[in-house]
């Protein structure tokens, strides 16, 4: 296609393997938003977000917290009468906004994901303590102590790892990843 793909197209292009219909097929029935358990915390309901994507309101969409609120429980995807894979579309938006480095102020999601990925590239396994710093500071003092309290309890019950786990063939693993994305910006 010679012409530059519109926003909706760009988002769909980030859905490598989803079998759902394109966002253009949305009939704005609101089943997704009616189903969504997190809808209350989104500044825009998923349905509205899709409408705005189709309208090409890129900046407004990326400024929204909606897709970062998605718990990827796939309830919308399962129920959508237009067979649109909404949860995957939310993933696509996350990827898009991280790729363009454009997202709402003060969101933990992006930083967290980034750290998480780095961690896995490093060790091949996830390890909670590494993650803590990514969000703990953005918490208010009260939350901080609550988290700390929970953590301590878990520690006492022997449910928190002390040493970071790592896989054996880490070198191969890294090179494997290297064939998909440039490691430079991750490690």
């Amino acid at each position, binding site marked *: 296609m010679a012409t530059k793909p519109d926003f909706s197209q760009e988002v769909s292009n980030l859905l*490598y393997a989803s079998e759902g219909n394109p966002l253009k097929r949305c009939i704005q029935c609101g089943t997704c938003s009616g189903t969504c358990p*997190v809808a209350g915390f989104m500044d825009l309901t998923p349905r509205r977000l899709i409408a705005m994507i189709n309208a090409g309101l890129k900046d407004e969409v990326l400024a929204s917290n909606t897709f970062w609120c998605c718990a*990827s429980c*796939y309830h919308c995807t*399962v129920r959508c009468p237009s067979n649109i894979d909404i949860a995957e579309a939310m993933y696509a938006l996350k990827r898009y906004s991280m790729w363009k480095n454009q997202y709402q102020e003060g969101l933990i999601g992006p930083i967290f994901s980034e750290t998480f990925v780095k961690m896995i590239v490093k060790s091949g396994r*996830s390890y909670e303590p590494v993650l803590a710093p*990514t969000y703990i500071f953005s918490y208010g003092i009260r939350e901080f102590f609550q988290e700390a309290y929970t953590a301590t309890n878990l520690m006492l*019950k022997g449910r928190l790892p002390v040493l970071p786990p790592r896989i054996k063939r880490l070198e191969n693993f890294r090179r*494997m990843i290297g064939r998909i*994305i440039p490691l430079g910006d991750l490690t």
Partner: protein
Amino acid sequence: MKQYAYFPGCSLEKIALSYHLSAIETTRKLDVELKELDDWNCCGATAYFHVDELLAYTLCARNLAMAERVGLDLVAPCSGCYKNMYFTSAHLQRDPDLAEHVNFALEEDNLHFSGKTAVRHLIEVFVNEVGLDEIKSKVSHPLRDLRVIPYYGCQILRPRKDHENVEEPQFFEGLLSAIGADPVDYPHKLRCCGGSLIITNRLAALSMVRNLLQSAVDCEAAVIATACPMCQVNLECYQQQINQEFGTKFFMPVVYFTQLVGLSFGIPPKRLGIGSELVSATPVLSWIQKSKQEN
């Protein structure tokens, strides 16, 4: 003896250790061997899909390929891992280009994905592979009158599309009845617990869990049974935080279905990792004692 390539997943190593222990114990009783996949790597959770889809598929594919090599079906006890593996496998089989790209990366670890291994959730192994009759036959200490919530959570079933089963599944209930417990008709058994949000969107996650706990209390359930470490941690470990946030007084034990099955098989609680929960599951235990005396 049935064998499976067992993919514990990161959380079962520590925070959900009890799930791991109880899974091993109970399956052994059922003549099923879970052979831990050698050198498995993180499935990428949800976060990976935020960054790079292809990479996420590759991570899952590595595990799938290793399972293929040992020629066993892959079993994941964590719904998140299960969903990632299951759909990675599905997508790669449907989309040769994607598979080619991923296999190109796998070469670096001398692996190849061809889609030979099936991916199963641990609870599927109990319900479909072993079968409820087999399980019944092993029950020595039925959890009589124990009101248990069969909490499916989201990713065991979704995003599959066979609606009757996705919106109104019954297999968890069946399993609980098989071990003598009394499954509660819990309206939110398929509602998401917000596991993936607990860090990135704490308040949302907490209030989601709160709704679940509230309706669990309304249903007069004694305990919630889960089949996913994320759900367990979310529903249990954060109760005290929820109580502080919302001034509630929840004290609802949340255990793994394997722990309940184990108890019904008469396996000592300790070996099932019972005792490591923050909200003590003693009520469950006391029920067992009771049913013991009855037998």
